[in-house]
């Protein structure tokens, strides 16, 4: 009997991973990013959120390889005097937390809705899908802006800043669940006519058991693929919201806020404030998308006839 590790190593999944250079490279880059975000408090030269560290006189210092750069601030400083590298590390962390959190939320809502709609059919399906359609037809960014603005108005800027991360997670999480719902629903409709589901009904199992213990595990492949892409989307959404001023507060910038803040200074010469975080964001989103693509291709031809 092979151990689980041996089975994994022998599996087609691992084999095609090893063959696909792009996937391997993307995975390595992603791991590096995740490690950086995880260890940010330890590896960052300074804590950019602590205002005691920031001296406005240090603002707009260019990266170390240019004139006027210093080795204290390797990638330069932003318009507030914060070290770019540290701020980027902390910002990456925020972006990833919000990205993963939002997708988890979208996933849970979407999967439950899709499962119910797909399996129960009829009126339930019609109602749930109309809800999804309505949600879908609003550009999610507009929904996010709307919710963000209302919260700020109702609760004030102060609490908004304190609760920024969970709030953004909620906002982005709620705005995009229809995609999950639709995908799972299609998968469920396909599975529910399969004979193993009929067999479960013949045994007399209750509906909930059949839905969650039989059909759901078999519909998860489609969800897995979307999830990776949605993480990238969520990170970008947060960046967009921050860019518009409706996201992370100025004192705790994410990658998106940095890009926004730097925009004003771009043409006056301090290009690094926008460009460096921009590059990180692009690479992060790119590798996630590439991994998602590869995952989709690998899981796709998995027919039953194994």
């Amino acid at each position, binding site marked *: 009997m092979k151990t689980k590790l041996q089975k994994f190593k022998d599996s087609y999944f691992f084999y095609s991973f090893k063959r696909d250079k792009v996937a391997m490279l993307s995975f390595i880059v992603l791991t590096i990013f995740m490690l950086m975000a995880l260890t940010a408090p330890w590896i960052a030269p300074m804590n950019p959120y602590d205002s005691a560290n920031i001296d406005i006189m240090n603002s707009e210092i260019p990266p170390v390889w240019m004139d006027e750069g210093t080795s204290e601030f390797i990638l330069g400083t932003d318009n507030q005097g914060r070290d770019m590298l540290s701020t980027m590390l902390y910002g990456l962390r925020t972006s990833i937390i919000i990205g993963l959190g939002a997708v988890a939320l979208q996933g849970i809502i979407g999967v439950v809705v899709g499962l119910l709609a797909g399996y129960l059919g009829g009126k339930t399906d019609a109602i749930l899908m109309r809800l999804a359609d309505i949600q879908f037809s609003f550009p999610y960014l507009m929904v996010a802006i709307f919710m963000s603005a209302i919260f700020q108005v109702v609760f004030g800027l102060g609490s908004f800043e304190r609760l920024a991360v969970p709030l953004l997670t909620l906002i982005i999480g709620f705005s995009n669940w229809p995609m999950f719902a639709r995908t799972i629903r299609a998968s469920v409709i396909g599975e529910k006519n*399969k*004979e*193993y589901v*009929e*067999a*479960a*009904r*013949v*045994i*007399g*199992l*209750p509906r909930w058991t059949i839905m969650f213990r*039989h059909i759901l*595990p*078999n519909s998860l492949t489609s969800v897995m693929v979307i999830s990776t892409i949605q993480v990238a989307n969520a990170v970008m959404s947060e960046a967009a919201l921050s860019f518009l001023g409706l996201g992370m507060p100025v004192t705790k910038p994410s990658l998106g806020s940095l890009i926004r803040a730097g925009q004003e200074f771009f043409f006056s010469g301090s290009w690094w404030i926008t460009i460096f975080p921009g590059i990180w964001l692009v690479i992060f989103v790119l590798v996630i998308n590439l991994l998602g693509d590869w995952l989709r291709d690998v899981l796709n031809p998995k027919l*039953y*006839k*194994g």
Partner: protein
Amino acid sequence: MNTEQPLVTMDNVVKHFDISGGLLDQLSFSGGKFELEKTTVKAVNNVSLFVNKGETLSVVGESGCGKSTLARVIMGLYPPNSGEVRYGGERIDNLTHGQWMPFRKKMQMIFQDPYASLNPRKTVRQTLEEPLRFHNPGMTGAEAGDKIADVMEKVGVDPAWITRYPHEFSGGQRQRISIARGLILDPQFIVADEPVSALDVSIQAQILNLLMELREEMDLTYLFITHDLSVVHHISSRVAVLYLGTLCELASAHDLFYEPRHPYTRALLSAIPRVGEKKAKHIKLKGEVPTPVNLPTGCVFHGRCVYADERCSREVPELRELDNGGFVACHGVEEGRVME
């Protein structure tokens, strides 16, 4: 003739499926005004059957004849539009989910596709344990394990393999596991929906032999659905022939094969390619098979029947008992027009 009450009866069962779609799909414009068109698949039309304890009743017919739907109506997967289904004398077509529970233990089903009938994400142990624990909540893990090992041996699969997943088995083995799942609750009645159609010929033989052995060993009653007439001849006591959801002929296996009465049965039998015999010219049927959506008027078979007359296109023939105990629904047979 068995004077004991039949185990399973179906009386005048009708099952139609409404596939009209949404409001916009139904809307059509004809003759200058809008109309709502309903499209119904008339899968089962007024079928009455019974299965005696200990026998094997085979239901045969070609695609679209409604045999699979019939099986599912009996098993309670679809409620019939009208008619009654009884098990052991008690009505089962109008029960709630909870009321079905005692019957679920007595009635089980085996499916056609060995690849789709087992949950690919569950090990064999999980698949077999689930019905067992569900219906016997007091059972311990050890007891369940014993029962599972026992049933696996009965179907000829090594009990040591219960930790494997379905995709690690061949088609024939998967079908055996399906059969094990059907047997694990010690049922009395099994509906087998084309259990060997998806298997290779030599594996078919193994599974058929297994099913026949189990019938003796466990005192089972079978309802066997298939389109393969040679299989039917081999294992059935009685045979029911369906065409477009209507029962054409019901007779003992011997009578059906050596003295078929209904014109459709005859055409069906003549079309079977027999190994080693130079066949008699098979009876050519006129036209194509109509769909169960647009049923012909009168006798469903009249459009393709060489003996059809005007009455056949008007009047639906009733099922009449013959002198040999069989039943036929055909005007031609009734009137003596159908030649031997």
